[in-house]
């Protein structure tokens, strides 16, 4: 039994209750509809800039790019240009592929003992598949939500909506009906992927062992966001015009709180606000961190170029050349080999201490 996910789950349930009771019972719509979203966005922006500037100030003491292929060396040895990038251009290509395709996650393997004590590694693709589905579905959902934040709605949002609602699934009975308004695939994919990622942490013993509340909380929270969104769209229904009036008020800096939108909408908004405010201080900052990870964004030219540690302060050093200059005469006298032959100065006496 793992208490960590219970902490996270209870936190999300508490957030739900706070938002629902706050708006549906106490009627604090101004607080949950205007004040908290503004506060959350401010925390999000300031937090992200603060975090990233902190990373920008940090030193990179070592050249630690991960090499996943043959390094560039002799001309007749074929090097892996992307997985062991020796030039800036190749690093940029590697970064783009890392950010858009999660290539390092693709290499995920599962280790286990088979037939007694034979250690085996198996390629494990499902984490990569669900992570890709999750992130892209979330991106589509976010871009789709621009329809509520922009007036008139730009063409790319409409285009995305059309593609997203490509499958027209309609179940129409008096008691149960789904499909009007049209079903967006991205929302369902997001919910399915986040559920898989959550179950992965709960079911696989090794992953559960290393999971903390900070791992479960965003998953439960995003599950809550996707769930309340889907609930509003397909089941409980809300007055979209009123919802857009509120969101447009927020982005045009003339906040209004229209009547006619229910508690679930404010729960959705409060969950999103929580996610935004939580983002900069959590593991979710991998969104910015991936660009700044030295294992990915450094060139693997450690043999060609010396990586200067920025911490290095000037250290007094005494090279062999200097040592020999200082003691050459004595070394020759003692019969030790010297690099430069000793020439006895003609007029002046040998001033060895001058170097």
């Amino acid at each position, binding site marked *: 039994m793992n208490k960590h996910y219970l902490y996270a789950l209870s936190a999300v349930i508490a957030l739900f209750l706070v938002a629902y009771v706050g708006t549906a019972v106490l009627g604090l719509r101004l607080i949950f509809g205007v004040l908290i979203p503004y506060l959350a966005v401010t925390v999000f922006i300031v937090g992200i800039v603060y975090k*990233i500037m902190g990373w920008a100030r940090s030193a990179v003491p070592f050249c630690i790019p991960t090499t996943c292929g043959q390094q560039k060396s002799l001309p007749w040895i074929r090097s892996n240009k992307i997985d062991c990038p020796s030039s800036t251009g190749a690093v940029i290509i590697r970064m783009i592929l890392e950010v858009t395709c999660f290539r390092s996650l693709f290499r995920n393997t599962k280790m286990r003992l088979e037939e007694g004590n034979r250690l085996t590694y198996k390629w494990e693709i499902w984490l990569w598949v669900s992570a890709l589905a999750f992130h892209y579905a979330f991106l589509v959902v976010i871009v789709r939500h621009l329809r509520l934040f922009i007036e008139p709605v730009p063409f790319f949002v409409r285009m995305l909506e059309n593609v997203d609602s490509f499958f027209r699934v309609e179940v129409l009975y008096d008691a149960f009906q789904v499909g*009007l308004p049209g079903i967006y695939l991205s929302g369902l994919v997001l919910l399915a992927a986040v559920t898989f990622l959550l179950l992965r942490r709960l079911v696989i013993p090794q992953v559960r062992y290393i999971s903390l509340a900070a791992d479960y909380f965003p998953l439960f929270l995003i599950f809550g966001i996707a769930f309340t969104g889907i609930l509003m769209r397909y089941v409980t*229904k809300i007055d*979209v015009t009123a919802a857009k009036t509120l969101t447009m008020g927020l982005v045009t800096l003339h906040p209004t709180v229209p009547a006619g939108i229910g508690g679930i909408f404010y729960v959705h908004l409060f969950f999103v606000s929580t996610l935004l405010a939580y983002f900069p201080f959590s593991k979710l900052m991998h969104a910015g961190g991936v660009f700044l990870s030295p294992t990915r964004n450094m060139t693997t030219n450690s043999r060609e170029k010396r990586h200067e540690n920025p911490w290095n302060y000037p250290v007094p050093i005494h090279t062999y050349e200097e040592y020999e200059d200082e003691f050459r005469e004595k070394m020759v006298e003692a019969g030790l080999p010297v690099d430069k032959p000793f020439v006895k100065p003609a007029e002046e006496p040998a001033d060895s201490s001058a170097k």
Partner: protein
Amino acid sequence: MNDKKWIIAGIVVFLALFTFPLWYNMGRAAPAPELILTEKAKAARECVMPEKYMRANHMQLLGQWRHAVVRNSKREFVNPEGKVFTMSLSNTCLDCHSNKADFCDKCHNYASVTPYCWDCHLDRSKENE
């Protein structure tokens, strides 16, 4: 350290993208569309269902009507108050709400919704004018 200018450029790009709705809407008033009711609709006072229900659920009701008419050839709708209506978009809904451009399209455009009603149904009001 040495990459500070690139990192700051990245942050600026991120902030520009994140605040896209803010500066895109700048200087643009985008008031919510107001429903314009025709004289006939005003006179009727009540729709087939209460206003609050209609605002959020009209698409579902229309879907159920279509299903009832096309699949089950059931054409009568009895609302909770016992009033009987003919299930028909063209003849019942558009009879009162004959101003499609003002009544339907305004909100649908505002919320970026493209209902496929008009793939088959005709907006008769244009012919009448």
